[in-house]
């Protein structure tokens, strides 16, 4: 397994057949899950780690917000931090920022202790909260400059370029800003800083699709400059488009981590084929949810059975064939659908 410092993003599905080279044994599935022996740990030896948390716990009264969470983000990677609302994403980020104290577990950020060395660390990172509240009487420009000063430096040229790209009127007072514009203020302040680590907590929540595209472009450029980005999201398309690696959490626990390519091994490929002659696919182990409508066959196939299915389809005569890797939505459903809760490990 190569270290995924800059793996393909959108083009990954197209190259999917190549992934057959990887071992598909059950052991591979286990290894792809986040354990001490998971691929993240295996990758540690080969790259520097920007964020490392293991066995992190945090309790609010009787509620366990984090229940042994593991997270590892390599230097220079865009890491998507996924989970449904209330899974513990923001709590984790607040611990990483030293805004909250952890109850247990280990956590280190850029090689330092996020609680003890908060001020020193904060000169090296920038943060965008999911719900940005600003000072109503200050203008957007004043706030960007203030946050830059508090962070210890902002690049004037980047500030200007980003303001133009995000199309923000910085002369307006913050009380006149919509949610999206408040978000832009925090984003510009963070992106214009010289920070080596960006912690973004659902940063596109208030942005319109046009600005979301701008944001994605910015993230891609930041990565090219070698910055590390932790991107928390419940938007799967965003993670799919941007991230090198993904960590999925649920109920304060890490359920899965790795590259998207590794995770796709864990779910079934959707196959839809129009055939010249009827076939019997139900006999093949690894074929699920099979429906036959006239000449059209739809099913989901375990990656291990794909070769055999393709052979059978070929013999029947293929008129059209669509083969789609599982989307992150499907990965998500698998881990977060209520009937599967507690069975995240499959």
């Amino acid at each position: 397994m190569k270290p995924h410092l800059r793996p393909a993003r959108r083009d990954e599905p197209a190259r999917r057949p190549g992934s057959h080279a990887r071992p598909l044994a059950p052991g591979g599935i286990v290894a792809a899950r986040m354990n001490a022996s998971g691929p993240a740990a295996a990758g540690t030896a080969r790259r520097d780690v920007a964020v490392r948390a293991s066995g992190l716990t945090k309790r609010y009264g009787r509620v366990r917000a984090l229940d042994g969470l593991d997270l590892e983000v390599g230097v220079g990677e865009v890491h998507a931090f996924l989970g449904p609302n209330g899974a513990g994403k923001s709590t984790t980020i607040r611990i990483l920022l030293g805004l909250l104290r952890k109850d247990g577990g280990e956590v280190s950020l850029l090689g330092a202790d996020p609680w003890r060395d908060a001020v020193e660390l904060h000169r090296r990172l920038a943060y965008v909260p999911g719900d940005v509240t600003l000072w109503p009487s200050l203008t957007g420009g004043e706030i960007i400059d203030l946050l830059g000063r508090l962070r210890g430096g902002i690049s004037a040229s980047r500030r200007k370029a980003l303001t133009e790209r995000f199309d923000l009127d910085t002369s307006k007072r913050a009380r006149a800003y919509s949610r999206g514009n408040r978000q832009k203020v925090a984003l510009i302040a963070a992106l214009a800083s010289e920070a080596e680590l960006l912690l973004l907590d659902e940063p596109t929540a208030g942005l319109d699709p046009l600005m979301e595209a701008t944001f994605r472009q910015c993230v891609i450029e930041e990565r090219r400059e070698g910055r590390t980005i932790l991107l928390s999201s419940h938007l799967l398309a965003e993670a799919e488009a941007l991230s090198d690696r993904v960590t999925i959490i649920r109920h304060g626990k890490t359920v899965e981590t790795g590259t998207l390519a590794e995770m796709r091994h864990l779910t079934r490929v959707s196959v839809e084929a129009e055939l010249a002659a009827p076939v019997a696919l139900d006999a093949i182990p690894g074929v699920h949810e099979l429906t036959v409508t006239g000449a059209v066959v739809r099913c989901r196939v375990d990656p291990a059975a794909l070769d055999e299915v393709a052979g059978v389809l070929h013999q029947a005569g293929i008129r059209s064939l669509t083969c789609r890797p599982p989307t992150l939505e499907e990965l998500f459903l698998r881990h977060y659908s209520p009937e599967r809760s507690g069975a995240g490990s499959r």
Partner: protein
Amino acid sequence: MDGFAGTGPLSKLAFRRDGVVLPACVLGIAALLAITARDLKVLYPTEASRVAVAARAGANPALRFLLGRLNGTSVGAFLAARWGVWGAASAVLLTIFIVVRHTRADEEAGRLELVGSAAVGRQAPLTAALLAAVAANLALALLTFVWLARLGLPVAGSAALALSISGCGLVFGGVAAAAAQLAVTARGARGIAIGRRFRLGRPVPPVLGFAAGLGGAGPRVRFSRRAVVGAHPAAGGVCRPGGGGIPARRLA
């Protein structure tokens, strides 16, 4: 020290945010005292007229209960006894609002999360709020002192009154700072610092807050929200463009 990193920019932020309201309040409180002092001088120009008023006021049990005995018959003594407490009350409320606004209120709104993610020490926001409060009270003391002294009141007495008023403000700046750490909401913090719960007019035992400081000697105002506004001398001063008419009648 790391804990205080960022205090400078944060205090500048506080002044930037309160750049209009804060000077206006300070000016209002100082003006309340100074205008009253001027009116007292005009209304009771002679020692004999003041002695007569003092005798009448001293004979009125209701006034004595509310405001205590007059301690002397000079214009300054009148001012301190009748209006000093209101000046102090205004300074206290102003200070409580400043401190809570820049600490608990910011945290409640979520603004402190953005600030806390920057290179800002954990003590910096509270320190910046207290600096703003101290600056406001110093400005109030200075302005009151200069204004009263220029009206011809004794220098030492003017200084003492000005300092006692801003001193009250400072003490409750400290109380508010503590309250801001105890309460979850800004409203709760202000409630603790003032010593009465605003909502429903239900009094909280006044152990800590400003209402406790007023104690038995002070007016027994029920601090419903409206009453605070009504009783607020700064607000009263605004509603009194003639300046001094009402107190003159009350003291006459």
